[in-house]
């Protein structure tokens, strides 16, 4: 299976929303990918300092950035974290972040891969 077929399969829902435009998805990834690590760092920093409320803004931003590409419910998990953050539930937020961090990072890696595809074409 070639690279384009992989992308079409992995991001089928996103591509459908974009009216079948794989190039657009890759171009959006190229814009989104570079900003993701900094946003993730902001969340980690807030959690490290025990500042629940200050984690809300980067969580919201991250959700927005990833939702275009998401197919596995990562955005929903971030929404759950966002609700913990807004309610000041630090322990639950940390727990949820630790539990889903791997999936978030994995999706960011995939977006980075899409961005690479955009730059190659």
């Amino acid at each position, binding site marked *: 299976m070639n690279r384009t077929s992989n992308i079409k399969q992995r991001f089928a829902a*996103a591509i459908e*929303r*974009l*009216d079948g*435009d794989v190039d*657009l998805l890759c*171009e*959006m990834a190229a*814009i*989104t990918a570079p900003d993701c690590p900094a946003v993730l760092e902001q969340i980690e920093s807030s959690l490290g300092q025990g500042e629940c409320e200050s984690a809300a*803004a980067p969580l*919201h*931003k991250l*959700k*927005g*950035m990833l*939702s*275009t590409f*998401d197919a596995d419910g990562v*955005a929903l998990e971030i*929404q759950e974290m*966002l609700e913990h953050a807004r309610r000041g539930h630090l322990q639950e937020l940390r727990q949820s972040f630790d539990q889903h961090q791997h999936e978030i990072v994995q999706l960011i890696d995939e977006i980075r891969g899409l961005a690479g595809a955009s730059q190659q074409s």
Partner: protein
Amino acid sequence: MPTVLVIDDDPSIFLLVRKALDGVADIETAATAEEGLNLASKRHFDAVLLDIVLPDRHGMAVFCEIHELDRRLPVIFMTVEAASKTAIEAMQLGAFDYLAKPLAVKHLRTLVSRAIQQRELASVPVAIVADEDLAKDSGELFIGRSTPMLEVFKAIGRVSKQDVPVLIRGESGTGKELVARALYQYSHRSEGPFLAVNCAALPDNLLESELFGHEKGAFTGADSRRIGKFEQCNNGTLFLDEIGDMAPIVQAKVLRVLQDQRFERIGGNNELKTDVRIVAATNRPLEKMVADGDFREDLLYRLNAVTIELPPLRDRPNDIPMLIQHFLSQAKSEFSKPDLEGVSPEAVSLLKRHSWPGNVRQLRAVVRRCVLDTVLPVLVPDLLPESIRADQMPELVEDSDADVRTLPTDDPQPIANLSEPNGRGLPDIVDRLFQERSTDMYAETIAYAERYLLLRVLRETDGNQSKAAEILGITRGKLRDRIATYDIRLESGVRIGE
């Protein structure tokens, strides 16, 4: 090319919107609220796409400022946190629409195109102004200056002070009860009670009890004496709506009241005297019902000594703008829509062309629905139900005898005119009516179900109307009336007329 302002702190959204609106609109972008407001104050835009959570200010606050700058500019909110609360608040503020992220290209394109179109239509001067003061100041009972309505007003003036029964005839929704109330208001009995009874809404035995009352123990469940409307309404006016649906036994008792002003409660022996003026109304062919034996001839002659005919709305199209303005002003005040300016010329034109089978009641419902739905200060055609937008029948306005069954076949048809129902299409029909934003859903759905039921039962009885009426639990007269309404042919098998 129209221009759309996109305010969002996610640059990938700019790319998506630019691609989605390629060929539809140019876009200008702003990553902060301040930048967006600055652009909105200096440039002309045809629509705005606004993120709810911005780095420097909440999108709702930004919306309010944009709204202050230009009330006709459609603003579409976008958010990744699509929750009921924000959606409700956004629409309450007057957002054109609300989009959940991730955005879908086709939907975005359709929505923005619609916003641009409505912006364009709403930018011309309104044809009818929504004037709140008009709703407050108007002490008028009726709206209309057409010749047929002037005849109605004159007739009310002539007979209101005469203590005679009046029969009001007219299609459903023409305002028969309003005429009855006017007759009461301008009569010598205006200090007395006005009571209304819908004869079609009650089963025969209950109607008899409602009108004449009953004694304790008169029938099972009659635990106490009940005073009927004829007694309650002494020295007043009793409005008997849908009198054509009254059972023969009740007709006989009403006739006696008309002749002698005397009656007995059900189960009672005492003759009671009352002084009631009867105003009756119907949209059924009473003369034909008399010929068919379903309505008492003597009662008809007693009732129709004075008859007031209410014209259908299609026969007085020149009154439509005045009616629109009246209902618009009322709804503006009632629904607290201070920004509402009026109706666009295109929308007025469509409203004037419609044949209005539901008459003034239907027009009122449509106007009120539009006022509720609109997010712009001007009512544009897009808000109107599909059946009105697709209306291309100016000839119906000219032809007072035209029936809705003469609608051209390429128009969306009222359900009563669709091909023969099989009873399984009901969910689709309800879905379609929702899509069309029907304001007559109840009547259209019931008509479909009723037509199916009649056909089914008539087939079961091989067209025998007496048997069918018995199975259906309605009078033969009512069945004949419905057969005629739905143009059911009984000659060779039972079928809908061509």
